């Protein structure tokens, strides 16, 4: 390296340290590059330690200079230095000096590193692929190794997860290098450890951030997102909590405030969650237990209980092995039928067929089950009668027939005319969820119903079973067209 290039690098260093506009550097950079090349020793700025932090400035400088060169060729006629003839001259000068190829090489080397394309899916958010550099991938691998190592030796449990965070904190306790990568890795790893819905795990994970260092000291820092990557990481973590229905508590807030301060964006998000989530925690009028049972029988019972409107409904669980001597498959049948429905079957005209339909999907949060129903055609006459009564009430015909204190009220007057099961599209007689949702299990369900409802064995039962429940969504339950037509006809008659 000759004297001039040494001076130049020193000068460049000073400029970079002083944080002069990178435009200045842009002017300087190619000169040094070319002179450096002239000596035969190429300077690789990237490998220089002290230039590492200002690497990007150099890249931009080089790129900008290249761009300027191309643009200068098109216009800027006024300036002498940059007129096309001068440029050509300078180009020829470079050529005379020789080795333009090396120059191109160096420029190529100075380009910013390409985004890493790894086959393994990264846990880092890919909002900005350029942010995922080699260094961050290395730190991520390091974080992953901590989790893997511990889960292999101690098993993937909650304790191991918390221990992994402790291990990270012990190892990186001074500089907290790779905290963001560790937390992103941990957020992904939570699935395998089974702690996605565990607040303690999140409390442990947030402690991978250092205390006190990232607290903003003035309003500007607050508004311009002090430590943006760390805050974004924290926000992503809170979002994952929100997504999994984990509500943070005061202790979590203390941990967060010790790390990001009271007013930071993360803490604001936390405050919002603490305000809104408990408000909406219990708004479901048909509550589902927070932790669903694993046993499919229990799940089926919960779903049936949720579906059945009638409070008198009796729920039974049968095993096919108990019901039949030679069952086709070993499953369970959860059945729901109320005394009212049994009465409806008793009153049903035996010549009219009953229908068994399904499978229709029903959800308990993420758990999907399929149910079958036994139904009859709607009882049109009773429905019409009710409709007429309603109309009469609306018309206020019995305006002067008040009940007074001296009259006894008959209990039958208060009784509803129709039960909840008699809807205008169908009369629902029983509900069931079977373990396998196959036709054979449904047939044995009907056989099992026959023991309670003796008239059922004499009525024809039609099975309408769809091959896959995905197509079930295309079809609605029942059919209210006959009732609709009758209603329309009667209206016409009354109009005449």
């Amino acid at each position, binding site marked *: 390296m000759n004297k001039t290039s040494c001076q130049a690098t020193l000068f460049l260093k000073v400029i970079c340290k002083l944080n002069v506009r990178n435009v*200045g550097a842009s002017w300087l950079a190619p000169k040094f590059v070319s002179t450096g090349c002239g000596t035969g020793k190429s300077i690789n700025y990237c490998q220089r330690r002290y230039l590492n932090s200002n690497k990007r400035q150099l890249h931009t400088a080089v790129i900008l200079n290249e761009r300027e060169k191309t643009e200068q060729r098109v216009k800027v006629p006024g300036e002498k230095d940059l007129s096309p003839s001068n440029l050509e001259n300078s180009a020829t000068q470079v050529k005379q000096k020789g080795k333009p190829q090396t120059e191109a090489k160096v420029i190529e080397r100075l380009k910013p590193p390409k985004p890493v394309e790894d086959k393994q899916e990264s846990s880092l958010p890919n909002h900005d692929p350029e942010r995922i550099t080699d260094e961050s991938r290395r730190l991520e691998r390091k974080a992953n190794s901590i989790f893997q190592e511990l889960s292999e030796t101690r098993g993937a449990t909650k304790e191991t997860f918390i221990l992994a965070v402790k291990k990270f904190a012990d190892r990186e306790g001074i500089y907290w290098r790779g905290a963001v990568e560790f937390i992103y890795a941990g957020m992904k790893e939570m699935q395998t450890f089974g702690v996605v819905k565990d607040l303690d795990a999140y409390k442990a994970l947030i402690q991978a951030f250092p205390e006190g260092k990232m607290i903003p000291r003035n309003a500007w820092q607050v508004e311009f997102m002090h430590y943006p990557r760390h805050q974004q990481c924290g926000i992503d973590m809170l979002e994952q909590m929100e997504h999994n229905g984990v509500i943070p508590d005061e202790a979590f807030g203390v941990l967060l405030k010790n790390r990001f301060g009271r007013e930071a964006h993360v803490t604001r998000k936390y405050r919002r969650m603490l305000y*809104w989530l408990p408000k909406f925690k219990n708004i479901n*009028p048909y*509550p589902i237990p927070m932790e669903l049972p694993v046993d499919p029988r229990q799940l089926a019972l919960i779903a049936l209980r949720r*579906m059945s409107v009638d409070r008198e409904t009796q729920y039974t669980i049968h095993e096919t092995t108990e019901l039949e001597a030679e069952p086709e498959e070993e499953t369970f049948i959860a059945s729901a039928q109320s005394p009212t429905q049994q009465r409806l079957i008793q009153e049903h005209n035996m010549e009219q067929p009953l229908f068994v339909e399904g499978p229709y999907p029903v959800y308990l949060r993420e758990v999907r089950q399929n149910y079958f129903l036994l139904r009859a055609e709607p009882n049109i006459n009773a429905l019409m009668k009710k409709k007429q009564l309603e109309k009469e009430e609306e018309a206020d015909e019995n305006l002067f027939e008040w009940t007074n204190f001296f009259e006894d009220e008959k209990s039958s007057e208060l009784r509803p005319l129709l039960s909840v099961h008699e809807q205008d599209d169908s009369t629902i007689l029983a509900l069931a969820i079977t373990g396998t949702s196959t036709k054979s299990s449904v047939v044995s369900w009907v056989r099992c119903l026959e023991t309670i409802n003796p008239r059922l064995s004499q009525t024809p039962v039609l099975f309408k079973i769809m091959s896959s429940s995905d197509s*079930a969504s295309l079809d609605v339950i029942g059919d209210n067209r006959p009732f609709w037509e009758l209603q329309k006809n009667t209206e016409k008659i009354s109009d005449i």
Partner: protein
Amino acid sequence: MACMSYSRLLATRSSNRLLSKSLQDLGCVIAKRYEKSTSVFFEKNKKGLERDLKRRPLRQALKMTFQNFGPELKLFYNEQKEAFSRFPMLSVDHGNYEVIYSFNDPESVKSWAVTADRDNEGGKSTANFTFSKNRTGLFHGYLSKEVPKDGKTKYAGYANITSPKPRKSFGRDTQMDWSLFNCMLLRLRGDGRPYMIVIGCNFYYDINWLNRWSYPVFTRGGPYWQHVKIPLSKFFTTHHGRIQDKQEFLPLKIVNSVGITAADSAEGPFSLEIDSIALMNDINVTDKHAYEMELGEKSRQPAKTSVRQPCYGELVPPPNELCGIPGLRLVPDQEIRSYIKDLGPAALKSSPTEAINIEHF
């Protein structure tokens, strides 16, 4: 020294050039920033899309204008006639309702817009809204949680139906006036998933365009019809789908659209059968907005009472007087309760709860 001054001169000159020439590049950088930022309130269109909406070609637009001029003029005449002849509705009695959307004919179902995240390349969910044989609308499809690898999307899986925007003659935007009512009634039959009801309004300024008021409706699944009643005060303000710290009243006079969104955590087929959507006036509901208007507001604390007042949305056992009716729960308004007590069982006789179950939550 001379060297320094010269370099400085060059630096300034080139900086000028940077500003004048690569303004477009700078713009790119800024736009990129904005895309990620959460604090941007500029909206390109009312749908909140980044791209421009498609416009009809001029020739087609002209053609349509001439074709529709006659019918539109007729509509305009009818509007004017109605405006002069009809007496405005001033009040609504307790319990009165008005059906705003009923799905008993194929046209009314067809007029609703169906969207799923597949349409915006944000996922793989599909949705459809069809007219069923029960003379109801059936909102069904498949919710897929698969996130597309575009680097931006984090979660996927939503489907939505939205009512058509009300229009006056000559395609002028108009709005509905709901100010006489305070409850929304829905008759539906679902599959156990929660669905979100979204109310949109006709705002003028772009800052408000994406404000929506939403509240979930929970279905129980199964073959039984549900009658759901939601006080309009319970709808909370959202912007871009995010709940807002600064809550605003639902502007009942400029309501524009009603939508139903399916976007819960379960992957799989969904189906929701909707019969009708109605508005009702209930004198028991006195609240204007069920939440604090600003996060952390202290002035609006509830009056101190010996009995613990239930929180909004909290499940509470029904008051003793009404235990006989399953599922009916009234807002514990002292006046109304004593009123019902005085009337005795005769007051309960006329309640419409015999064959249906009304949920008041």
